[in-house]
């Protein structure tokens, strides 16, 4: 029972991530790649993404501190960041990235700054949600299954 209940919770947590647009089907692709050879594949990828994206964010922040803004360079960085975000299916993050790129095209300094703030916000939000998800998700857990099975027994 507990097992089912927990499973359900995990499922609904996962579903809401999709429903609320935080994640897109790329995430499912990652889940599909997970197998016995790489049992924690999805988590590994997400971890990798977040460590790498930190570097990219720093690049953009530095560039945004240089006035007048080098929109070309900013767009470049953002292009990279967006590409990276697409790897884990970070949907909302990607949307904000596009917004940022629009501002670059329009050479809108304030727009860029504001858009970037949004990007960082979404980026951080998703990270939190995914961390929680991984803690409870089946792939992650020896711990969880243990608890569940024990409770179920």
């Amino acid at each position: 029972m507990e097992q089912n209940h927990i499973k359900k919770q995990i499922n609904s947590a996962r579903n809401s991530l999709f429903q609320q647009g935080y994640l897109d089907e790329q995430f499912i692709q990652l889940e599909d790649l997970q197998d016995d050879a790489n049992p924690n594949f999805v988590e590994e990828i997400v971890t990798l993404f977040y460590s790498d994206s930190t570097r990219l964010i720093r690049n953009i922040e530095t560039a945004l501190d240089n006035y007048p803004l080098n929109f070309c360079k900013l767009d470049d960085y953002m292009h990279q960041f967006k590409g990276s975000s697409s790897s884990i299916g970070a949907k909302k993050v990607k949307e904000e990235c596009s917004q940022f790129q629009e501002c670059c095209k329009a050479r809108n300094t304030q727009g860029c700054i504001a858009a970037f703030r949004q990007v960082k916000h979404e980026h951080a939000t998703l990270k939190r949600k995914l961390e929680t998800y991984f803690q409870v998700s089946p792939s992650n857990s020896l711990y969880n299954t243990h608890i569940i099975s024990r409770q179920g027994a």
Partner: protein
Amino acid sequence: MTEGINGFSSPRADVFPAGLRVLVVDDDPTWLKILEKMLKKCSYEVTTCALAIEALDLLRERKDGFDIVISDVNMPDMDGFKLLEHVGLEMDLPVIMMSVDGETSRVMRGVQHGACDYLLKPIRMKELRNIWQHVYRKKIHEVRDTESHESLESLEEILMMRNVSEQSDDGYLLCGGDMTPGKKRKDAEHKYDDKDFGDHSSVKKARVVWTVDLHQKFVKAVNHIGFEKVGPKKILDLMNVPWLTRENVASHLQKYRLYLTRLQKDDLKTSSSGIKHPDFSPRDAAGDRTDHIKMQQNEAVNSYRAPSNLLLQNANSRIHEVDLKGTASLQTIEPKKVLTGFAAKSHMASSSNIGISHSFGSTQYSTYNTVLPTQYSWSEGFTEIQFKQERNPQFQVENGFADLGLPTLQQHNQVNLQPVQSIANGLFSKERDKQAKSSSGTKSSFGSYSVPSQNLMPSFQPPDPSFQPPDPSFQLPDPVTSSTWSLKDDHSLEQTSINNLELSAFWLQGQHCSSTNLDMQNKVPECNDPEFIAEVPSNLYDALRFDYEYEYPSDSLEYPVVGQGLFIV
């Protein structure tokens, strides 16, 4: 490269496409890891690289170590498109581009630069599962190309086949289309384009389709500059094709060089083997490539030049070489070589064939043999090759003696035709060999042997009256228009004759010191009469007799025929 079961070199003998060796290049570590996992799931053998330069090094180190490359478009150390071009040029591997940006112009650029596919990130498994098709496709095309002597060779053949007439350049249209993407780019997204387009007014690095016309121009330019001294810039300037870029020319030049080298190697192999029919028949263009290369070059040049000076000039230079060796040497030219050289693809071959038909039986053969080499000696080094081969004209000569009448001719012609035909046909199909051997069947165009010659004769306009005799034979062999062999229409014959003229002029000049010519000359007035041809007087034959022995078995007649037909007067 050892061909695996599936036709591609792979150390593994896995069932295709399993074991496909993929090189993934992406500066994004997350994507790199994902792609690696995805490809592994497809049972591919994956190597990852975070830097373009690193990827190139890897590719260079392990030649034939990879089957396909997947690369991201945006990379810090090198533009993905540049990498794409390098790979295409140096390794000739299929390259798939990836990007999160799916803008039409970008995708178009990718295709222009030679990408065989352009994937949008996020990439799906199913897309990766199918990448093997690009490897397979390339293999198939390579095989085809090799058989037909490579696309370059095909181009050359077609070039020769044409009659020098420049036609509208398809390439223009193609490249015209390429212009658009460049113009459409938006600043932010196409800043890469900015850098690129800054240098060129036209499409930069457009993947050019080398049409026959374009290739013709190219070869013309190369030959004009002098093969040893060519450089992309010079060629480009000479070609005067506005939308073509230096890079386009450079890459094509590289391929052309490789192609020529390969011909040369094959040619050398053939020549060293001595008199061997097999060289000629069994192989496609395997034999006598050297000659072939040169001939092709020259031919290419000559073919697109109007019956011209260049031709004559070439002929002259050649002739000198030949002359040095003495008249006799002309005669001692090894038909085999000659044949092989141009036979592989040559138009010459066809022309010689025609010549053969006109020639008076075997006599012609011998002459032909001699002559041919001369003609083909346009290319440097040809001379050597020429003299290496030893034809067995005697055999043919004898035959010729026996029946100099038309009937014989026809016989011979037919024999000759076959090889010739096959040569001509071979130009377009890889079945030269088969045709050469197939004998009588192939003489479709030569079927009416006498007819063609008749046609040819009238249309023939000898460049030099004194050399008329040879002319008819020259006319005949218009290899370029193998289709005209059937000589169905005079027009084509004329074209042929023009080519022949060139050849003959060439030959004539070369032969000027040969006694054969003199003899031939006596026959001049009669040359225009096919019957005359058929009845080559014995003295003519004598004049043409060569010292070399005929060693080829009867079925090898085909070869000698080819060579001989042409210039025998």
